[in-house]
């Protein structure tokens, strides 16, 4: 008996030794979360998982040095390897396609000096921000230069200012939008012939009440010495399929952001008139993290370094402070946040750029010199389905997707609200109100309630009218009866 148990114990030991220690997959230790209506952080299943890592050495061309720009067109990835003065082109499986080190300018090879960004048009034209050569190169797909954008000769661009192109995007009519260093009037806009047409997306300067009074009281010299109210300098820009510019800004104080997120607007969607048209119907403004709990030297609000807008109108912003990626839907609701600072795959040391390939996300880490690819999980896909179905009016299917989301994550507020909205559109106001109430969506609740009230009044109109008459007539009837009986008694 004793021996038997010994054998058994040995066998068990052998089994435990042989089986691999709990198979920890990347997604199991990945942290994805969302905020509820009270800004409480709620962990959720992973919506995206890190799948792949691209390093320069994997391509056999040496490590990236201080890479600053990342762009994806179709299934081709462009990494701007700033420190090595080259642009690395790879396909979606991370195989090297090309290594651009120079372009053909008037029959001569022209090299780059610290290029920072690239934009590739749909026809394959390249726009390269050759930053330290103070120019933007527009080439065709064979790298023959079509146009060179240099310092605009315009009264709005002061003559003693150097032209430092940092980020560029072009819309499908060939207009070029440029984020330039030391320019705080917004983005530079060039028409398709290369002429400078002006600034777009500048911040409207609003002096506060006290600033106005302060200015009144100051002498001219004091006023001159005072720092100018400088409007926002943007940190990055992206363009979506409908030619809206998405821009991020990081020049604000934490107090400003906490008190007036409406004035700061770290994420903006700029239309052709230069106005911010970002929809903000969520519980809170899209500003990244809501809780700024500090850990070591990581303090303060999220500083959004880059943004990318997907074809389904969701957008993802990249926070360089905590290395996190924030996903928002077209209504400005936070879908999920993930990522972080660290050395594991899916975490970053200093993320600087984000772009998308279909629904995949690619993030460039400046310090690690790597590109990480994230792909959607089942959970993320269901959320996307729910949003997409709702947008095109398939409310039944949308609610179905959100119900499946709830099976995976019962804490997902957007799913409840999504089901509620679908019910609202289907005319089930009573049910919809319950869903909205449970997740504190006052606006939608009010809408549902308005319909519900209308329905109820229409159904019960005869009782209401009857009740109304009873209330009006009853006192008179009672009075009349009393009079009659009293009169009768007197007779």
């Amino acid at each position, binding site marked *: 008996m004793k021996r038997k148990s010994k054998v058994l114990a040995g066998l068990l030991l052998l089994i435990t030794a042989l089986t691999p220690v709990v198979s920890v997959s990347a997604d199991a230790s990945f942290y994805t979360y969302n905020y509820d209506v009270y800004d409480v952080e709620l962990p959720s299943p992973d919506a995206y998982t890190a799948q792949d890592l691209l390093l320069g050495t994997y391509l056999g061309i040496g490590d990236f040095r201080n890479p600053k720009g990342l762009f994806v067109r179709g299934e081709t990835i462009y990494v701007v390897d700033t420190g090595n003065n080259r642009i690395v082109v790879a396909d979606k499986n991370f195989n090297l396609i090309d290594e651009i080190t120079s372009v053909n300018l008037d029959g001569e090879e022209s090299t780059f000096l610290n290029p920072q960004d690239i934009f590739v048009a749909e026809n394959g034209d390249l726009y390269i921000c050759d930053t330290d050569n103070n120019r933007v190169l527009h080439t065709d797909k064979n790298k023959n230069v079509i146009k060179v954008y240099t310092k605009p000769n315009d009264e709005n661009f002061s003559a003693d200012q150097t032209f430092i192109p940092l980020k560029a995007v072009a819309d499908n009519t060939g207009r070029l939008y440029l984020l330039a260093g030391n320019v705080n009037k917004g983005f530079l806009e060039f028409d398709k012939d290369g002429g400078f047409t002006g600034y777009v997306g500048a911040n409207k300067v609003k002096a506060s009440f006290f600033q106005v009074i302060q200015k009144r009281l100051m002498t001219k010299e004091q006023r001159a010495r005072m720092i100018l109210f400088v409007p926002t300098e943007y940190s990055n820009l992206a363009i979506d399929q409908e030619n809206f510019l998405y821009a991020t800004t990081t020049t604000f104080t934490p107090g400003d952001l906490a008190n007036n997120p409406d004035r700061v607007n770290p994420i903006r969607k700029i239309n052709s008139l230069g106005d911010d048209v970002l929809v903000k119907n969520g519980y809170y403004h899209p500003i990244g993290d809501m809780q700024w709990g500090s850990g070591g030297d990581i303090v303060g609000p999220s500083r959004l370094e880059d943004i990318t807008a997907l074809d389904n109108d969701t957008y993802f912003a990249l926070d360089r402070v905590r290395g996190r990626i924030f996903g928002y839907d077209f209504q400005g609701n936070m879908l999920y946040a993930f990522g972080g600072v660290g050395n594991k795959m899916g975490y970053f040391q200093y993320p600087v750029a984000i772009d998308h390939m279909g629904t995949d996300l690619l993030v460039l880490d400046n310090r690690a010199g790597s590109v990480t690819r994230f792909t959607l999980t089942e959970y993320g896909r269901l959320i996307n389905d729910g949003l997409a179905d709702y947008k095109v009016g398939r409310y039944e299917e949308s609610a179905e997707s959100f119900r499946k989301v709830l099976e995976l994550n019962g804490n997902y507020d957007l799913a409840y609200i999504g089901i509620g909205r679908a019910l609202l559109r289907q005319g089930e106001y009573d049910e919809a109100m319950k869903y909205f109430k449970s997740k*504190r969506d*006052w*606006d939608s*609740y*009010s809408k549902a*309630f*308005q319909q519900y*009230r209308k329905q109820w009044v229409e159904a019960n109109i005869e009782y209401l009218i009857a009740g109304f008459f009873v209330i009006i007539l009853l006192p008179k009837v009672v009075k009349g009866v009393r009079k009659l009986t009293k009169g009768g008694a007197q007779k």
Partner: protein
Amino acid sequence: MSIKTAFQKDKLMHLGKTLRYSTYLIFRPFDGFWDLTHEKRGSMGAANVILALVVLTQVWQWTYSGFLFYSPQWEYFNLFMQVLPFVVLFLIWCIANWSLTTLMDGKGKLSQIYMATAYAMTPYVLINIPLIGLSHLITWEENAYYYVAKNFSMIWCVILILCAMMMIHDYTLGKAIFSSLVTIVAMMIIIFLIVMFFSLITQSFGYFISLYKEITFRLY
């Protein structure tokens, strides 16, 4: 009927009569507040009932109002802390007002100030209790009706308090407003003193506790 029950019934009738007087008073504040104290038309019992009703109105507002207007986070909700400020401020108001108006030739006694201020709260009860029902019937787009009525009740109360000050202290309107503003300053001073008193008490307690600990460490 025994004498005792008759006496109680009489008392109850008196309470009802004085309570009903509040509805007369809010529409004719000048006569009303004069008669309230000088003609003994009001009673302390009725004043206490009105105060209790104000507190209850606040409680009912939190618990029974529609989702759109009151949606507290029940996990962290403390009803006591919601109604306590009103009661405390009311009592401090009475004390501060009495201590000031005695210096400013006010004729009112502390009990009269208490009674008149309590009676002046009547519109708050009369308007806000129906509003609880209304909050279930209107949407957020129509919130103006709700908030106009609510603010109206507050303004009415303030006007009544000013009338009460004029009548019970025999003040002119200007002096009533001035004394009310000074009363608010005095209330702040009282609150400051209370807070300071408590913080000093806690600190001195802390001192003696640490002293005790120190001694026990040394002796054992």
